[in-house]
């Protein structure tokens, strides 16, 4: 057993304990006190993948994605005083065009930050102008996921301002991996619910999990989850932005497959408010809007695929 798997196991146990506390919110200072800086410095992969997967599995809430992004590019912003505004649903953009109005979200206790960081782009250049939170229209919204503690932020165009953001692409790549792992935690929890149900639920005198029509749906969830885990592994080797976007995309696909199939095999029980399934569906739908990989992947088609650039996966 390697040092890193020992650290991972210990971290996982801590994460479960933190994310299952009553309100499931792990505040920024708690993550800092946990030794985030050292964990991230020692093994960013273990720190991000373990915490994010448990956060997903436990329906936890934190600013882990921002911490991961800042670990990748420390000069981006200061999470203790500033929170990032995430773009949602702007045609796959992860930034706000600098002449367009702002409509995005701040995650978890980021709403308490004094300043909001608004990633804006003019052409290929990304800048991170700051605005006082009090100057923006920011209000908590329940929306699809009442447990996610998101704050919707709206404002008129903020324009450019400030120097080009150093390391933005790399930060998005690592942030995408954090979201991918969180989605995979969500998928894992959904699959576990579905497996438990189809083993116990009997119809026609047999457990419904013995029907191949049911089995094959859950097998497909497992295949897509394994596929996403495999791409995440490759992405952590090279940390190339295209492979990270692929990992984020594969995790999104696994979530959509899980949402479809787990709901179906959980039947009417899984369609009640009382059942936990919809809480995972709601969380995944929200996560799947953050750091949309679509544009990066389209860009990859003209570069990484054509060049057949490779992460050497045989030597690790």
């Amino acid at each position, binding site marked *: 057993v390697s040092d890193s798997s020992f650290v991972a196991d210990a971290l996982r146990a801590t994460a479960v304990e933190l994310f299952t506390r009553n309100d499931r919110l792990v505040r920024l200072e708690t993550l800092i006190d946990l030794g985030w800086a050292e964990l991230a410095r020692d093994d960013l992969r273990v720190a991000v993948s373990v915490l994010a997967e448990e956060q997903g599995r436990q329906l936890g809430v934190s600013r882990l994605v921002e911490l991961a992004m800042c670990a990748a590019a420390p000069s981006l912003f200061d999470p203790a005083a500033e929170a990032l505004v995430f773009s949602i649903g702007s045609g796959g953009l992860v930034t706000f065009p600098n002449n367009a109005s702002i409509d995005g979200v701040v995650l978890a206790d980021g709403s308490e930050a004094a300043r909001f960081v608004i990633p804006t782009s003019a052409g290929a250049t990304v800048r991170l102008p700051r605005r006082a939170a009090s100057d923006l229209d920011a209000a908590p919204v329940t929306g699809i996921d009442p447990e996610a503690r998101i704050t919707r932020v709206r404002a008129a165009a903020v324009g450019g301002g400030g120097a080009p953001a150093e390391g933005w692409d790399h930060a998005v790549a690592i942030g995408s991996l954090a979201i991918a792992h969180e989605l995979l935690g969500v998928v894992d929890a959904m699959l576990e619910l579905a497996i438990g149900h189809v083993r116990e639920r009997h119809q026609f005198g047999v457990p419904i999990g013995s029907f191949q029509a049911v089995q094959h749906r859950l097998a*497909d969830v497992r295949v897509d989850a394994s596929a996403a885990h495999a791409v995440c592994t490759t992405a952590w080797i090279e940390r190339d932005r295209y*492979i990270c976007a*692929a990992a984020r995309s594969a995790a999104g696909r696994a979530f959509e497959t899980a949402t479809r199939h787990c709901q179906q095999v959980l039947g009417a029980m899984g369609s009640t408010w009382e059942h936990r399934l919809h809480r995972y569906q709601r969380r995944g739908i929200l996560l799947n809007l953050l750091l949309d990989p679509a544009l990066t*992947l389209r860009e990859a*088609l003209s570069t990484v695929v*054509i060049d057949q650039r490779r992460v050497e*996966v045989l030597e690790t």
Partner: protein
Amino acid sequence: VTTVAPAPSPGELRVQLHEWLAAHREKFADAGRHAESPSLEEAIVPELALQRALWDEGFTRWGWPAECGGNGGSAVLRAAVYEQLVLDGFRIPHPMLTIETLGPAVVAFSPEVTASHLGPCLRGDEVWCQGFSEPEAGSDLASLRCRATATDNGWAVSGQKLWSSLGTVSARTAMLVRTGDAGHRGITMLLVDLDAPGCEVRPIRASSGRTEFAELFFDDTPVAADRVIGPVHGGWGVAMYLLQWERGMFGWLRQAALHARLADLLAAVGPLADDDADRVAEAWVRVSALRASTARTVQRLAVGENLGPEVSVDKVLLATAEHEVHDCERRLRPVDFALGGSDADEVFRADWFYARMASIYGGAIEIQRTLIAERVLGLPRSPR
């Protein structure tokens, strides 16, 4: 006594191969990705020439034991060589696909056959095929009935095999035969010469138009006792070991080809509408997953791990990746696909039809999904 240098790393071997291929590009031009004949029998000729040269130069000797002429070293080195071939614009010779399913099982279960026969197969002097499926034994492989009866100096085989890829160009088949009672405990694997008395090979033309496979008939065909691969009645274990390599290394070979296909497609069609681009991107992500997953499988098999039912994931990934890539290609080049008259268009169509079989050959994905459900996820057993 030959002295063999210490094994290179996969990366070092890639560089050596890349340089050698660059210097011999013209000589093996007909084995190029874009020079494939629509006829499998014709396509295979330059591929075998390349296969021989790769062996003689030592590239494909890495990862095979000294007993069959190999240089030793990890099987991961083989994976590196295959991918590099594709990256440098060559086809992976068709016979190497069968080598990667049969070879590891021969090495693991029969030092005798490894020493006596595997070398010429690896060098491309002769082609081998699998003899697994039968008319009444497809997904339910353990119900196979082709029988081998013990004789004074070996076995006499009678029965039929079906869907043997490359059967029409093969010299031998590694086949599963019934030597004992019904069920998986009465099965043995034999290496059988296809020019032996009582053996007949009939080609089967696939929907692709190519003679992809053959049916093999045996009537009291004699097989020497030293042609048993693994224990007598222990053929099921050999087949299960073999199937792990078929999932892992075969999937790895195919990801290399599928990556190249996507690259060629993008180069051919130019800028894409967003929804087309998103489809291609999704296929690329799937192929990336196949690559990542099969790389891990190959690495684990190379160090002797027994992977069990988890390898079925690779097979489902392969099938879905094949379908997605080829469907993208058909969607983006509909006119070439429907009307094109060149050899390349004919191969394009043949490849699409062949890709449809990826969810059938080597164990239909319905079987894989059931294995994943029952043996990975722990669901209750379905009625059989």
